[in-house]
Every structure is written in structure tokens, then in C-alpha cells.
């Protein structure tokens, strides 16, 4: 007690928030096992019908779809962010460093809705991209990009980039440059150095960035809702539809619970699958 006199005071605000959060989660859980009474916000008795309904193809597909979108988003984000993070940590030019930081981090400072609208302007039938392609004569009618999962993924990649770049850059900057110099002195060219030294040693950052990107995308709502336009069903858009269009709170709650469980399960699975990779990098 004497050694940490303010600990209690410092922790209490966080404690209050935690209590609120736990209470809300318990309420959601409670709703998920109640019966839905159409036409009212009241709920009926305890039932497991909500969870059974989720096995129906419509909902199972939404879950599968969400996992797929998250996975693809994380993969593309990783592929785009790695070169940026690499350049960020390796360049000697401070101008280039600032440029990369600004380009990759600004999406964080735009609201999700603003960002999504700008993507709608880019992806729409009369949008920037299609106009450009038509003018260049590369296509003769507009490509359909809005309301497709491709469009949703493009926008989600944009959202996820900053986190991925930051996490990868952190991992890359912790690699002792002498490892690369040692490999070079032993006769390894740039590509071999990257494949045998840099890439394996940055594995912890890749795993962390990938899992974070996955979790972020799983809970994304505005982007799949606006760009998907109801035609790309994800867990979060379904929850919104059921909860706030049909006012089926019990079913929305059970979707939330399963969604949460699923995303935790996938992340745990990712971590497990990645642990040999991390061991390879010698970090554990």
C-alpha cells in the first residue's frame, strides 16, 4: 500500500469504465437468450432460438463473408504497407520519411464517414476511377465497383493502412542493421538478405499487424454499409439491420455475441498459426 499510494485513485476511472462495459456486455448477452416479440421492443422468455437461427445459410454466409473480407483486407494491407514501412525505416531522406508518414497516417485523422464518402466518389459509376478509365478508352462502360466486396475491401485497406504501417515500421526498426551487414559480408545480395534476414526477423510485426487489421475490419460498419449498400452482408451490417430496421434486439444481440466470439477465435487461431513463424524469428 505504501509503495503505491495513488494506485487506487489512478485505476478507479478505468475501473468505472470497465464496470459500465461489463454491464453492457451482460445486457447484450441477456438479450441474446430472450425471445423476440414482433412489433415491440419488449422481449419474451428465455430461449436458444436466436442462436439456432444463425445456422441458416443467410447468416452463416454473412459470417463467412465477413471473415473472407477481413482476411483479404489484411492481406492486401500487409502487401501495400510492408514496402512503405520498409522505406520509412530505411531511407536517409527525412523528406521521404515525412511524406510516407503523412500519406500513410492521414487516413487516421479523417472520420470514417468522410473517408467512405470519398471512396464512393472514387468508385461510383460516374466516379473518378470510371471516368478516368472511360476517357482513356480502357473500358467501354463503367465497371461496377460500388456495392461489391472489392470496393468494400479497397476502402477498408485504406482504413487499415496506418496501423499496419506503424506496426511494421516498429518491427523493422528494431532489427539490428548489423544482421544485414553481416549477411552482406557473407556474400548475400539484397534479395537474399531480405528473404533470409529482414523478412523472418520482421515476422512478429507482420503477425501483430495482420491480427490487428483483421480485428479492426471485423468491427468496421460504415464502410461496408455505405459502399456495400446492403449488397455486401457482413456481421456488423446485419446487426444494424436487425437491431435498427427490424428492431429484433434479441437476434441482433445474439449476432453480436457470436461475432465477438468468432473474431476472438480467428485471432487466437492466427496467433497459434503464427507462433512457429515467430519462433523462427527468435523472438520467443
Amino acid at each position, binding site marked *: 500500500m505504501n509503495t503505491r499510494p495513488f494506485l487506487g485513485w489512478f485505476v478507479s476511472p478505468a475501473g468505472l469504465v470497465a464496470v459500465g462495459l461489463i454491464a453492457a456486455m451482460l445486457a447484450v448477452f441477456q438479450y441474446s437468450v430472450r425471445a423476440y416479440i414482433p412489433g415491440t421492443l419488449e422481449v419474451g422468455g428465455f430461449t436458444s432460438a436466436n442462436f439456432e437461427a444463425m445456422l441458416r445459410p443467410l447468416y452463416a454466409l454473412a459470417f463467412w463473408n465477413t471473415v473472407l473480407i477481413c482476411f483479404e483486407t489484411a492481406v492486401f494491407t500487409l502487401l501495400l504497407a510492408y514496402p512503405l514501412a520498409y522505406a520509412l525505416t530505411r531511407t536517409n531522406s527525412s523528406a521521404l520519411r515525412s511524406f510516407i508518414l503523412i500519406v500513410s497516417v492521414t487516413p487516421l485523422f479523417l472520420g470514417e464517414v468522410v473517408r467512405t464518402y470519398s471512396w464512393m466518389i472514387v468508385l461510383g459509376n460516374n466516379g473518378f476511377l470510371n471516368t478516368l478509365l472511360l476517357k482513356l478508352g480502357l473500358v467501354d462502360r463503367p465497371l461496377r465497383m460500388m456495392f461489391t466486396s472489392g470496393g468494400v475491401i479497397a476502402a477498408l485497406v485504406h482504413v487499415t493502412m496506418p496501423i499496419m504501417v506503424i506496426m511494421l515500421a516498429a518491427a523493422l526498426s528494431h532489427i*539490428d542493421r*548489423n*544482421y544485414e*551487414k*553481416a*549477411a*552482406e*559480408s*557473407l*556474400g*548475400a*545480395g539484397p534479395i*537474399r538478405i531480405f528473404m*533470409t*534476414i529482414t523478412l*523472418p*526477423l520482421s515476422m512478429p510485426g507482420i503477425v501483430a499487424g495482420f491480427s490487428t487489421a483483421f480485428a479492426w475490419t471485423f468491427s468496421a460498419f460504415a464502410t461496408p454499409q455505405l459502399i456495400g449498400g446492403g449488397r455486401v452482408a457482413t456481421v456488423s451490417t446485419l446487426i444494424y439491420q436487425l437491431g435498427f430496421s427490424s428492431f429484433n434486439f434479441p437476434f441482433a444481440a445474439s449476432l453480436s455475441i457470436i461475432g465477438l466470439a468468432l473474431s476472438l477465435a480467428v485471432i487466437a487461431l492466427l496467433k497459434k498459426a503464427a507462433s512457429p513463424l515467430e519462433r*523462427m*524469428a*527468435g*523472438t520467443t
Partner: protein
Amino acid sequence: MLMRTDPMTAHTPAAASDKIRPAVQLDGVTKRFGDSMALHEAWLKIRPSEFMTLLGPSGCGKTTLLNLVAGFLEADNGEIFIDGDLVTETPAHMREIGIVFQNYALFPHMSVAKNVAYGLKTRGVEKREIARRVDEALALVKLSGFADRKPKQLSGGQQQRVALARALVIKPKVLLLDEPFSALDKNLRGSMQVELKQIQRELGVTTIFVTHDQGEALSMSDRIAVMSAGRIRQIAAPDDIYRRPADRFVASFVGDANILNGRLVEKRGDVAVVSVGDISAEVPAAPIAALSAGDALDVFVRPEHLAVTSRGVSGSLPGTVTTQVFQGGHVDLYIDAPGSARERILLRSPGIAALSSCPVGAEIGLTIGSDDIVAFPPREAA
């Protein structure tokens, strides 16, 4: 510059060193970092199988020189040759050099065997041959049972051996050692030095060793290049560096030196006669070429080259013992001699006799018992 390298040619027959093709040669290599001159026109020839040490305080340019030879830095001016081939523009991975880094830089995600095999794999050596040579290299550094360990599971000394094996297994044209002992504790350092020197001699690999530790440099090197402020001040064998330092910096950086107030008496060709109080002595004339008879100069005398005698003996300097420090094998006496030296004089007396014969406060006479003394023009500021 030429004058400074004189002591080298004095002890290494010029004819012989010209006939042998140098393993490493630097011709006027210069490197700038922005406005600061990291290395100024370095000229250096390293003979095959030679153990050459770059010695100097931090920031003297020794690591820059090493990185230039390795190919990690590009020279602004000058040319670098390895084994007679011009490599100034050759990328590091094609120079066939082995490096042991200060922190060893063992690949943490690979086993000991994989670390050692790395340089052979990049060369496309056949698998069975790799296994054979890795075994051989690990045996050389006495780590045979450790092939499957990860670097993290090894002690500092063992990690260093792996780093050495990894650098040597590729049969490099030059072995570069960047302060390899600085991370080891003192006892281990001594035994690793002996072992490294032994392996180096056995394999006959040309070695460039960077250190700021003059003891390491003196004990391990065939020749030493003393560096300061981006310049090579002297290149010579360790005993020459110690006995005939080419300039003030070398004299005070390598070993301890007392600075006595002297005066130039006369010059006789290569040598000059100087006087310190009643004592007169011969010193090399080259460093004081600019002075003429009667000029004041600083005479550098090693602590072990001073001896104690009775006060008033002719040819001695008067002094008073102020401190005794027992060092085990010898006794350090600190002596005030206001007429002869601006600073306290350190005298190193072998054995323990001085403990009783020269108590604190004793008024004694000092004599110089060696020909290995040098003189330099007085420091401007003093």
C-alpha cells in the same frame, strides 16, 4: 606525413614490403560525413597474413576505415585494393571479407550451424561440403557440440566464437574485427585474445583489428596504425610504437608517459642530444626537426624507464615522493619534481623494494635508465 611513417620503413625492409603484393591497400582514401572529415587521405599497405590493428580513441576514423574496406561505406576519394584487385566500387557482398562485429550480429533466428553455413550457402557450396566445413569451423573455435543451439542460448564468449567461425568458414581474403572483445568481461577477454591470435596465425588470414584498447593492440598486432582525428599518425610494429612514437599524440595515447621539461643541445644527423636538468640524453631527431639548439622541448619518458637514486647524485633530477601505490608486481611512485616537470611524475619500480626504500615524503633523485626516450616540440598552448 612521410616523416611520420619513417619508423615503419625503419623496421620493415622497404625492399621486401614492396616485392610482396599487399593483401589490402588503401591509396589516399578520404571519407567525409557532411562537413566532418571522418578519414583524411589514408595510405596503408597490409601484408598477407599480417595482423594489422587500427588503434585510436572513439571518433578517430578507425571504424570508418574498416567500413570502407568492408564496402559498407563508399570512399569520397582514393582507391582500395584487396589482394591486388581494385575494389573501390565493388559492393560489400562481392568483396569476400569476413567480419566479426562488436555485438557479433549472429542471426537470432538461425541455429549456430545455420549461422556458420550462411556464407557457404550464398556461394552455392554443395550440401555435404557445407556440413563438412561447418563442422571443421566449429571444431576450430572449440564449439563442436553446439551446432543446434540458438545464439541466445550461448554465453558472450561462445557467441564470439560462432561469429569468428562464421567469418572464417568462407576463407575470406581479409578478416575484419570491429572491437570484438569490448563486450566480454576482463578474464574472458584475455583468453579470447590469445585464442584469436593463435587461430589467426594458424590460418594465416590477413586481419584488420579495430580497437581503442592500447593493451590489446600492443599484445596482438604485427603492426599498429595509430589514428586520431581522421588521420593515421603512425604505422609501425608494437614495440616501435611504444619505444619510438612518431608524435605527441602517439606517445601519450599508447602507454603512460611522463613529460619532462628539456632543452635541445645539438643535432647529430638522425639523433639529437637533449638535456633535462643535469641529465643529457639522445632522442630521434626527426620529430624535432624544426627546433634549433637551445630551444625548449618536451621529453617523453615511460614510467618504467625512470629509476630512483639518492638526492644530489650528479645526472639526476631532484624530486619528492608524494604517493605510493602497490600494484602487486610493481610499485607506482608519484613524484613531485617542480623544476623538471609541470605535472606529477609517475615512476614504475619493479618488485616491492620501493615500498620501504621510498616512503611518502622521501627526497630522492631521478635518473633515466633507458635510451627509449623521445622529444617533441612544446605544446603551443602551454
